[in-house]
């Protein structure tokens, strides 16, 4: 049965699009049929992070308006044949995104895909509300930093009250994904630790993505980090997170870049 997953955060710049691309590719890598949808109308970027920016013909709004059929707007990834992108439009008219339109598209995608991953825009306005509206589960991307944690808490409140599932009286499945984590700085008390963040948000952990130059390197070349350098620390952390999404039990560790003894010590402390 199809799973609709929203990747959200409230705060901008914490890694929603990076995580959507990395998790989408990790799930598709194992053969699942995955579609990633960019809900950031007016400021699309998932196409760029996936390296599909020059292949966008039709977009989400075109499908909602009936200008294009859904299959015409879906872009198949060049590396993974089971990974598809539904890009956002660059229109400035955000009202073009309608609740009914989104509902129709999600229903149609549910028939064809195993995973429908909705990349939410920052904020709590229309785009963010509709990205989470029909989700079965949510990944809340959080940096170990006060403003990000506060916004995540706000988003958790919205997930529990404003989603279709919540309104039916069901519980939406929520997971926190901590990104840009420095184990060593957290161990020295310079940065909120994983335990701090989880205790404050009282939400289960999906994964810990270490701060790494591999993330920028991957977006520079338009490839999810899980495809660009699958053995890098952030990629391994995303692969683990993807397996947890599928319900597998994977021990929680912070992968480190090198096999140095110092790094090993730090990752053990943070786990």
């Amino acid at each position, binding site marked *: 049965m199809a799973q609709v997953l929203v990747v959200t955060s409230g705060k901008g710049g914490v890694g929603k699009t990076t995580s959507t691309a990395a998790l989408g590719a990790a799930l598709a890598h194992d053969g699942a049929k995955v579609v990633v949808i960019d809900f950031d109308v007016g400021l699309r970027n998932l196409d760029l992070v996936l390296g599909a920016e020059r292949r966008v013909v039709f977009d989400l709004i075109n499908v909602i308006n009936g200008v294009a059929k859904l299959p015409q707007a879906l872009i198949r990834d060049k590396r993974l044949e089971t990974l598809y992108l539904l890009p956002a439009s660059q229109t400035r008219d955000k009202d073009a995104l309608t609740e009914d339109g989104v509902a129709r598209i999600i229903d149609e995608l549910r028939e064809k895909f195993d995973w429908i991953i909705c990349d939410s825009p920052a904020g709590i306005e229309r785009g963010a509300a509709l990205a989470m509206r029909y989700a079965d589960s949510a990944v809340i991307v959080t940096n170990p*930093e006060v403003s990000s944690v*506060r916004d995540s808490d706000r988003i958790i*409140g919205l997930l529990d009250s404003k989603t279709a599932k919540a309104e039916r009286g069901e519980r939406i499945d929520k997971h926190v994904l901590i990104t840009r984590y420095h184990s060593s700085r957290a161990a020295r*008390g*310079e940065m*909120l630790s994983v335990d*701090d963040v989880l205790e*404050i948000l009282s939400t289960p952990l999906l994964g810990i993505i270490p701060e790494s130059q591999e993330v920028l390197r991957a977006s520079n070349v338009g490839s999810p980090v899980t495809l660009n350098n699958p053995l890098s620390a952030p990629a391994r952390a995303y692969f683990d997170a993807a397996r947890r999404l599928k319900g597998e039990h994977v021990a929680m560790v912070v992968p480190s870049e090198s096999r140095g003894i110092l790094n090993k010590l730090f990752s053990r402390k943070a786990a």
Partner: protein
Amino acid sequence: MSLFGLFRRGSAPVARERLQVLLSHERSARDRPDLLSILREEIIAVIGRHVSFEPDKVQIKMDRGKSVSTLAVDIEIPNRDRVFGAVSH
């Protein structure tokens, strides 16, 4: 805590404590979204039973602290007739 102590401990514990205080308030506000306006309406109704005043001359402020919060109600009452004598009638 001295600056030196803060430096040695790292600033994360401060971040954690600030977040815990802030979010406990924000969560309770989320459940009762407009506590202040409910208080305002009911206070105006109660006081208005005994003295007359302009509803827009009522100021209600809440200051949320870590262990104690304060609620300040400031009502401007005009000095015509014996305002407080009215209570006994």
